[in-house]
């Protein structure tokens, strides 16, 4: 048999035609080069972006603090008995005075030298009012005692220490005076000045003082919204996709729905904000600035993404699996829920997480429903005013102060961190649930 074929081939095979092998290789190499160039440019931009954000923002994670012995004097705070009876006095007490006195004593400044005292006290953040009050309210027994406390430095001190000021310009043109610089050196030599990890960046709410401003409220607001989006968009989106893909008859009407869903995915997000403003706030009367409304708007925005991803995942399940189940006498519902859906799950989860990540970074629609608000207190429920991470970034980006510039980048790093976490989760889920068939 094989002999026959070998001898069957004519010996004098015709000369090979030139079909341009060299050209083909050249085209292939060219194409590869284009691809590599494109990817290199992409990576370059990514590096530039990350570099600019990280180089500006990493300092935001450190905050200058001053180690000051504070005397919680009874003159200022009242006696512990008084405090136990009524907290009003404690709430209103002059805590900055305590801080000022502590620092003045530490630096050995004459308490009657007004200029020196005010220069020194400007190094302390006005956030000490809350900081010291919380210490006292936590433990009334400190009244009358002296305790070493790490006080927040003011944003000027912080910026000066981080080298963000040009110190060569004349004294009156910079936010920090020569006297203050002397104090800083003195504090440094005493070991009372330190850059400590800035937990406040994660826990504080809005503040006009950079050193006590944080993304705490924004993180909680974003978290509420993500939960709302997940709780609403995932079941609605998956149910709609299953119906459209597996049950709905294929006709003009379902075609129309399909086209519309695809178009919805391309609608600019600000339009969804307008819709949310008109429907949820003006019509349903839901509160402005509430995470609930933000969540609902983002749900609308995320739905098309989830529906499209889910339908693609359902369609990718080989039809032979459906036949196998149907052929065994499984009903349509059993087939879908026991066989098709589990196989589509990784795709659905990935789509959902990508949708959520999109929603997490969305700003424009939130501006329209009033989530650009100065919210200092944690929202206790999704009905309370809140902000969101990207909105907080937007608001800080509008602040002129040097300390807010680094905080803007710091908040961007936090946002990027959350996004990276979500994408990693998507990859992990995909690996975990992916099955061969």
């Amino acid at each position, binding site marked *: 048999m094989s002999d026959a074929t070998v001898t069957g081939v004519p010996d004098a095979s015709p000369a090979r035609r030139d079909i341009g092998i060299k050209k083909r290789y050249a085209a292939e190499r060219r194409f590869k080069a284009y691809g590599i160039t494109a990817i290199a440019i992409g990576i370059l931009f990514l590096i530039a972006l990350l570099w600019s954000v990280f180089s500006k923002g990493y300092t935001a994670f450190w905050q200058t603090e001053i180690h000051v012995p504070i005397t919680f004097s009874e003159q200022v705070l009242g006696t512990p008995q008084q405090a136990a009876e009524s907290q009003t006095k404690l709430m209103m007490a002059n805590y900055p005075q305590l801080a000022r006195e502590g620092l003045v004593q530490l630096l050995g400044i004459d308490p009657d030298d007004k200029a020196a005292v005010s220069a020194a006290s400007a190094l302390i953040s006005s956030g000490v009012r809350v900081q010291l009050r919380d210490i006292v309210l936590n433990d009334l027994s400190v009244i009358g005692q002296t305790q070493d406390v790490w006080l927040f430095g003011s944003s000027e001190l912080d910026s000066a220490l981080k080298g963000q000021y040009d110190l060569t310009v004349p004294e009156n043109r910079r936010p920090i005076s020569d006297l203050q610089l002397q104090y800083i050196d003195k504090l440094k030599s005493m070991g009372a000045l330190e850059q400590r990890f800035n937990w406040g960046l994660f826990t504080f709410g809005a503040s006009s003082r950079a050193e006590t401003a944080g993304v705490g409220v924004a993180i909680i607001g974003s978290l509420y919204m993500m939960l709302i989006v997940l709780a609403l968009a995932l079941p609605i989106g998956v149910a709609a996709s299953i119906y459209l893909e597996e049950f709905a008859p294929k006709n003009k009407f379902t075609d129309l729905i399909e086209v519309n869903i695809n178009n919805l995915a391309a609608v600019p997000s600000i339009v969804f904000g307008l819709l949310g403003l008109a429907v949820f706030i003006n019509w349903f009367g839901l509160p402005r600035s509430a995470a609930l409304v933000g969540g609902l708007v983002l749900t609308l925005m995320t739905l098309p993404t989830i529906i499209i991803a889910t339908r693609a995942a359902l369609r990718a399940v080989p039809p032979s699996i459906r036949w196998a189940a149907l052929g*065994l006498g499984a009903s349509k519902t059993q087939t879908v829920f026991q066989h098709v859906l589990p196989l589509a799950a990784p795709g659905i989860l990935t789509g959902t997480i990508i949708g959520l990540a999109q929603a997490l970074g969305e700003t424009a629609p939130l501006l329209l429903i009033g989530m650009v608000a100065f919210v200092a207190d944690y929202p206790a429920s999704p009905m309370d005013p809140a902000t969101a991470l990207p909105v907080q970034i937007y608001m800080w980006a509008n602040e002129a102060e040097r300390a807010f510039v680094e905080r803007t980048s710091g908040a961007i790093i936090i946002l990027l961190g959350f996004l990276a976490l979500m994408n990693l989760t998507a990859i992990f889920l995909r690996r975990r649930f992916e099955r061969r068939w």
Partner: protein
Amino acid sequence: MQMENIQATLNKGPAVQAAKPTKMRSENVTVHYGAKQALNGINLDVPERQVTALIGPSGCGKSTYLRCLNRMNDTIDGCKVGGKITLDNEDIYDPSIDVVELRARVGMVFQKPNPFPKSIFENVAYGPKIHGLARNKNELDEIVHRSLERAGLLKEVKDRLDEPGTGLSGGQQQRLCIARAIAVSPEVILMDEPCSALDPIATATVEELIDELRENFTIVIVTHSMQQAARVSQVTAMFHLGDLAEVGPTEKMFSNPDDKRTQDYITGRFG
């Protein structure tokens, strides 16, 4: 394909063809895919506990006809079935018939092995579970083991029932699919080219299996292999361009067909 070859392979089982009652009867069955007609009025009796082979050139409607018998065509958009098909004299397209129940009585094995991406045990147990055939775990265990045994697979897999069914070889997968089909205790098993993805050895195993299953089940098998039809079937039906060209005892079909198209096809002149 040589006539003598095929005759040599004919299944010389007990010549009982005439005695068997009809299990499924088709009267003037037509199928349309949209505007296109795929079957033009098929009249065919499937005898009980026999293997009926459907042969014919590609695209002549064998699979289409097979899918009519368990109403799998219902799941295809735009597919319309006309005429009448009965199972034990009951019209299976009657509105009072529940397709789920019908498919439990008329099982199907597909061309490409399609085990669920679950364990071997779960693959076989799925049918009995959804049809409530087992009252408890022990009964289910027994059904699974018996089905695997009958499909000739138990020996190979009994130590790894919890491994994925997709990890088996092609031939094993196909036998797993057969085990899965018989676990539901159907009356009729439809097989659409069950061996086309298998090597000769796996094919031989499956063919032996079919021959054994004939004792308890009515089998309808689509095949492109004349030898296979000759080896396993007692009745052969020849389809051609949506028509039933000829049907008769396999022996007669391969030795002395009445229809010119059958003759041409089995001697390899077209198809």
